[in-house]
């Protein structure tokens, strides 16, 4: 019985990992489409979202079945509760990758307005947060999860810098390029929201690892 239960827990963990790799792939693909204004790649990214939606449902069903059959307790209960929550966050991150792909489609017909500087930095920071959040989940690592939460300030700063620059340089001074600038502002906003979901995942990992609920209490770090 115990061995079967362990296998089921491992199965859920593997599914979450698999889903997270697909989600990372979706973000990278959307960012590449944005950078190269590649409409076809943006479309492929949007189409692949259905696969992630399906994975989310499968993981939720596996968690529900595990609760039903095994009544998990202690660290197993915390694992299932955290997984159910981060499963939703991963799915929302994939939706945001779709949003970025849509922004890529919007700007694909226009020439690039400026060399991207802060946007790649923002993308790198957010991708690192996601990788760390997933690593923290697999290793039940409190410290890595904490690092993810603390990275969120940097993401907010970069998002603000991008917004102010595009607003002042393009939307106010060159209204004819306001559409492109607005799409890029939104793309930065989507990346920042991905960062927020990474923070949620890290909070769930902290609960899973220590039973501490740190949501809304980051100042205690």
């Amino acid at each position, binding site marked *: *019985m*115990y061995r079967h*239960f362990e296998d089921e827990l491992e199965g859920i963990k593997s599914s979450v990992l698999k889903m997270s790799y697909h989600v990372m792939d979706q973000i990278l693909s959307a960012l590449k489409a944005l950078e190269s204004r590649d409409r076809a790649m943006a479309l492929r990214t949007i189409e692949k979202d259905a696969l992630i939606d399906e994975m989310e449902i499968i993981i939720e069903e596996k968690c529900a079945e595990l609760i039903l059959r095994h*009544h*998990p*307790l*202690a*660290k*197993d*209960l*915390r694992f299932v509760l955290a997984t159910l929550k981060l499963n939703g966050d991963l799915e929302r991150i994939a939706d945001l990758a779709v949003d970025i792909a849509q922004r890529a489609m919007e700007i694909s017909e226009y020439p690039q307005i400026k060399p991207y500087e802060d946007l790649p930095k923002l993308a790198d920071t957010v991708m690192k947060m996601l990788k760390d959040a997933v690593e923290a989940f697999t290793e039940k690592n409190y410290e890595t999860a904490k690092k993810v939460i603390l990275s969120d300030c940097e993401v907010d700063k970069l998002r603000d810098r991008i917004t102010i620059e595009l607003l002042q340089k393009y939307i106010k001074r060159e209204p004819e390029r306001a559409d492109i600038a607005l799409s890029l502002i939104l793309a930065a906003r989507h990346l920042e929201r991905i960062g927020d979901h990474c923070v949620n995942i890290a909070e769930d990992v902290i609960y899973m690892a*220590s*039973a501490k609920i740190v949501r809304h209490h980051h100042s205690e770090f």
Partner: protein
Amino acid sequence: MLRLDTNKNKPDFSSTEIRDPLNRVHIDVSQQPKIRVRNLDFYYDENQTLKKINMDIYEKKVTAIIGPSGCGKSTFIRILNRMSDFAASSKVRGEISLERRDIFDPEFSPVELRKRVGMVFQKPNPFPKSIFENIAYGLRINGVKNSHEIEQRAVKSLKRAALYEEVKDRLKESALSLSGGQQQRLCIARCIAIEPEVILFDEPCASLDPISTAKIEELILELKKYYTIVIVTHNMQQALRVSDYTAFFLMGELIEFNETKKVFENPSDKRTEDYITGRFG
């Protein structure tokens, strides 16, 4: 039963903290516990079945005792009303107080103790008498002579045990004609009729079907409004459903004692975690 009274000092009632064997502070409450157990050792012949148990049992709360077979949980609750006195060659050492009164005090008779600390067993054990007599008999041997009072208290107990509506028209029928679940509730009514302060349940649902189990669990939650309850159970979900505090025993030791939510969500001791998650052994 021989009591080894090596510790002449009375238990320290000034502290409101209780520590586990690893000296971690678990509970710090201002309320005085109903029962205090300090440094309790118990032996059958030369075998020590309980080792240095320190634990507080709080008034009008449900305390669940969990642990694998043979860990000493039933032995422990049987000491709380000195049922363990009946075991030959047993020895007890340490302190147990019921509302600050040492239960081993020679002036505290076991009969008086058992009136205040009642017990319900694993298998329903009604007397081979009528439903009514099962309750009336206990009252009579405890000195209640007035038949009107006996009737009143019997009805009140049956109501409190959530059995009255099912048996009110057949109180004169044999108690043995009742179902297992009804018999167990009759035993609870018999226990309640004596007006105890504490009720000890030793796996009360072990021989019952899920519906009868649910009724007994509902009843326990209702009874804690009036009584302090200690329940030994092998069923983790039952401990979670009914108890406020949980104690985990292993090989005669109290490994962990804390609020039930804490024990089942984030136990402090790896042995507790291994047991409740089924990784024991």
